[in-house]
């Protein structure tokens, strides 16, 4: 009896699996920041007036601008996913580019904000800071660690989105080549294409020892630059989830550091 190896007709399970994995990963990110928020809560309770005074030194204007930028980037991120879902590749890429640029502007602002603080002599372990009260020291310690960690996440998010940009831009072209030793596992079977009702549309000859290589290739019309690879959509959705998480964390950081005066 000959066995058939069915390669085609995949139920959409892996996509859902990838999303579950992403959500679980986001839990871990939340808890990572959760530890910091816990420290913040304790020290804020211990030193409420010091936190108040220290926060007056932060530039609310820059913080507000950064909040608006990140919120906008979340909007463009969502639009990019929606555009890709509707098959509008150009719009999706444009929106994704705006998202990345927003991230970049955020980081540039953050850079100037931090360097200004350094010029005023405010950085961990500085003399100017050590002359101040304990609570203000802790405020700035938390400020640098939490916004620094957040900035790192923005940076990682930008890199992820840039990689996705390249993936989506490329014209899809799928190819797999299995050489003879990889085919050993399916010797004696046939390659077939089935539809959803398990009806065979095409079946190959027996896969035997003489088979040198098996190639499967999916090619698309060259002029169809807007053809979308549906796996990219799942990746973009996951990238979007991550970006929104980074955004949400900032939504909490902003009032906790800038608006408590």
């Amino acid at each position: 009896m000959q066995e058939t190896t069915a390669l085609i007709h995949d139920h959409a399970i892996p996509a859902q699996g990838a999303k579950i994995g992403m959500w679980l990963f986001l839990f871990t990110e939340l808890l990572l920041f959760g530890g910091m928020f816990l420290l913040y809560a304790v020290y804020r309770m211990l030193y409420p007036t010091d936190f108040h005074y220290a926060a007056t030194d932060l530039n609310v204007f820059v913080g507000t601008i950064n909040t608006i930028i990140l919120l906008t980037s979340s909007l463009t991120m969502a639009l990019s996913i929606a555009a890709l879902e509707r098959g509008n590749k150009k719009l999706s890429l444009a929106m994704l580019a705006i998202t990345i640029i927003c991230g970049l502007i955020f980081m540039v602002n953050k850079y100037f904000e931090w360097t200004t603080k350094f010029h005023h002599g405010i950085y961990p372990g500085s003399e100017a800071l050590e002359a101040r009260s304990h609570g203000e020291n802790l405020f700035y310690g938390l400020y640098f660690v939490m916004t620094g960690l957040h900035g790192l996440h923005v940076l990682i998010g930008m890199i992820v989105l840039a990689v996705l940009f390249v993936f989506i831009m490329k014209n899809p072209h799928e190819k797999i080549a299995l050489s003879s030793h990889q085919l050993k596992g399916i010797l004696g079977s046939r390659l077939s294409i089935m539809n959803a009702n398990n009806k065979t549309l095409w079946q190959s000859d027996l896969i035997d020892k003489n088979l040198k290589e098996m190639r499967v290739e999916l090619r698309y019309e060259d002029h169809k630059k807007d053809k979308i690879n549906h796996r990219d959509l799942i990746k973009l959705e996951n990238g979007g989830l991550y970006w929104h998480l980074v955004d949400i964390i900032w939504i909490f950081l902003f009032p906790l550091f800038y608006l408590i005066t």
Partner: protein
Amino acid sequence: MSTHASQSFLEEKGKYPGIFSWIFSTDHKRIGILYLVSMLSFFAVGVMLGIMIRLELIAPGQTIMPPQMYNAIFTLHGVIMIFLFVIPGLAAPFGNFFLPILIGAKDVAFPRLNLLSWYLFVGGAAIVILSLFTGGGPPDTGWTFYVPYSLRTGTNVTLAVFGAFVLGFSSILTGVNFVSTIHMLRAPGMKLSQMPLFPWTLYATGWVQILATPILSITLLLIILERVFGIGLFEASKGGDPVLYQHLFWIYSHPAVYIMILPAMGAISEMIATFSQKRVFGYKAMVAATLSIAFVGYLVWGHHMFVSGQSDMAVIIFSLLTFLVAIPSGVKVFNWVATLYKGRISLEPPMLFSLSFIFLFSIGGLSGLVQGALATDIHVHDTTFVVAHFHYVMFGGTGFAFFGALHYWFPKMFGKMYNKKVASVAWAIMFVGFNVLYFPMFIMGMRGMPRRYYDYLPEFQPLHFLSTVGSWILVTGIIILFTNLIVALRRNNRAPANPWNGATLEWKIPSPPPLENFDEEPKITGGPYEFTR
């Protein structure tokens, strides 16, 4: 049938030759064996360090090493045994190998992520080992890296902590992978309530890994930042609170205890059922106990800090919650014993390990209650009583379950059967050695022998001597055990597909399993423990 059914995953030639067919493989079975081999190598190092600690303590004063080296060695023993052996524990090697098979899947949900987590494991381990030979020498803080000492010591804490940080990532990825796998890839017809108990414990463990490990990551990151930049969040001279470090550390590290023990309990349930040839008594209660241990275990971290300065209210609540954990643990022990009742018990080596697990774990668990009670804890805190307690739980519990699981699944993993008589002898020697080694520590602790001390009063010497002799007996048993398994690998004593007459899915496929696990996707109709007579 087709030809490929006869070829096992061990014989299957991958894309790459030689060792690369292992370290580039995304097959969950190969990754499981990679974990097994790397973990056992670290275990061997940890055992040697443990032997050195015992040898130093055989007599008061300096015996074989100076005090600073002693501090470094007990730190390393802890770091290696905890982060590189019991935390990956049974989940990484046996979970990777058997989780997909037990739920009728071809692989885990994210095979490449799975390989990445092994890379991170080995990478983190390499960093930890590198920290011994670089910078200011091996860390001497104890495995807990408590501030303020860990911020001030000149030894290479920064690198060691970074290694543990990387290991945390590995653990998180494994957790994400297992939880997704259980949700997505169960065989058609297998409801959650039909899953064997080992996957259930991996599920609970996965959630603990996901929800607890990030707290350790941020805490370790803060240690690094404190050491490099001097931020002062844990530095009392800058207004920080060192006790907060302990809170953050134990918010992870207490749940981590359940990361270590839960998969062990799962494997014990499998073995007890198989070697009693009986359905597990109270399957649903077992599942509920697993989940509630994971949940309540998340809320008891404060019991490590009864003498560190918490409010009386906090201390009382943590003590109460600690006692609550004993209830589901007790349910488990009760159900194991009830499964044995009127079962057809066969005392094969894995069963010997399982039975001794129940015994040793009960001693470990009950001695835990002594420390969970506020009044007695003040007396035994930071004494060798604590050392004895967690060795009874972690070694007598997880360790014995690990060796039991190794003997239970060895024929399936490698397709070869070991000499059962020798294995039983090794078990007996280990069991005796274990108790001679650790039981005296209970007594010394009650009498006031502090843990981590280099020197001691002469009145403790007889018990210390006895304990050191126990370490020799134990290590003899371990050597016999592994020699027996290595000999079995070299001999050609083929194991049948189902040597123990097990009922779960792994026993329905050849030993060792073929690359794709199942020729046909299994269809599940009944519960996991339907034994045929």
